[in-house]
């Protein structure tokens, strides 16, 4: 029987999910607090994660969100300029270029605003994401809380690595 390769992802078993249920998907946008809660009624999706999953689907990526996985998660909306994408589990490296392009579109405004800012002391909007990348025998986790421009640089490196690995 197939198993989760990440100790934290095993926590979703508590919510009735199996590896087989998620195996048809290349990217899974998981509830942001998946690891921390025990009661399924407390799960919530970050509102930006919902948009992310829809844009990925529109680009033809096999992407699942909590609705597709029958998780009755709430929606957590933070009325701030920051972007919260929750936990994004990438199971197939082939989709990384599309993922990077979609994320770049979503945070384009934040990048523009940072570059337009004339006052360096003025804080720039932050982006929050926990990426889980499935490798052959492991899952690499990248937890990022920082500015949009740096995230894009990191993701571009990730994209380049994928291309060179191929």
């Amino acid at each position, binding site marked *: 029987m197939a198993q989760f390769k990440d100790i934290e992802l095993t926590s979703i078993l508590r919510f009735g999910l199996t590896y087989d249920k998620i195996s048809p998907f290349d990217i899974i946008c998981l509830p942001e607090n998946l690891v921390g809660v025990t009661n399924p009624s407390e799960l919530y999706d970050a*509102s930006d994660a919902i948009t992310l999953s829809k844009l990925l689907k529109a680009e033809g990526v096999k992407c699942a969100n909590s609705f597709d996985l029958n998780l009755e998660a709430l929606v957590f*909306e933070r009325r701030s300029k920051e972007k919260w994408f929750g936990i994004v589990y990438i199971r197939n490296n082939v989709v990384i270029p599309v993922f990077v392009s979609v994320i770049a579109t979503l945070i384009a405004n934040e990048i523009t605003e940072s570059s337009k800012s004339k006052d360096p002391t003025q804080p720039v909007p932050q982006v929050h994401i926990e990426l889980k990348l499935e490798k052959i025998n492991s899952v690499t986790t990248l937890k990022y809380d920082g500015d949009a421009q740096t995230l894009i640089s990191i993701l571009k490196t990730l994209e380049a690595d994928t291309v060179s690995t191929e």
Partner: protein
Amino acid sequence: MISQEKFINDCAAKFEEWFNNFKLREYDKCNRIARTHIDTCRIILKGEKWNSEEANNITYISGVLFSGLNEFVRIAELTRGGTWPMDNKRTEEIWKLMWNSLERFEFCSPYFVAQQFDSIKERLEELREDFVTNFGHGFYASPEILIKKEICSICGKDTRACLHIGGNLYNGEMCYNVPKDIQMRTVSVVTVPRDPRCRIWPWNMKEDRTFQTAIIVLFTIDDWLDEPKLEHEN
């Protein structure tokens, strides 16, 4: 109903007419032009609509544009004389109008290109800088909301179950994520807000360090689609 071709050709002509009157400070004429155009857009979109999605989207965009222009005229009236930073109530009103029109123009910008439009947006950016000069970058109320169910305004399904994207136009209709059964968790004071209209102004701060401010403003760029209120209803 006005023909689709005539309406679309008229949009640019109306804008030029509005701009020429604005340069002459004929604000009443500007308001009349904008209101008439907004009424036409509302009648089209609330009525039978065109057969073309593109034409309906253009109608929506021009309604948003002229609604922003209406606010821009009001800003011009309120900032005339340059003494507005001394008047707290007026400052608050200009701030809200500025963000309303900035939001509307930002939406229209990818679709409407004109040198005169650029000069209007530049004027708003200058006004934004005037606010920084006079009042600093400011602090804002920013609530965190838990939503039990969120519905897509286009298809009525759970927002996670469809492919409509919030903020995109579909046949002259804006897609919104409509929250049902909401619970406010916390309200934070932030420096980079999603909605700058929730600004905490120093004059609204009491001696005991409590303050009054809006935490959510129910603003949408297509509020002009609602029937205008009669004078006695205001």
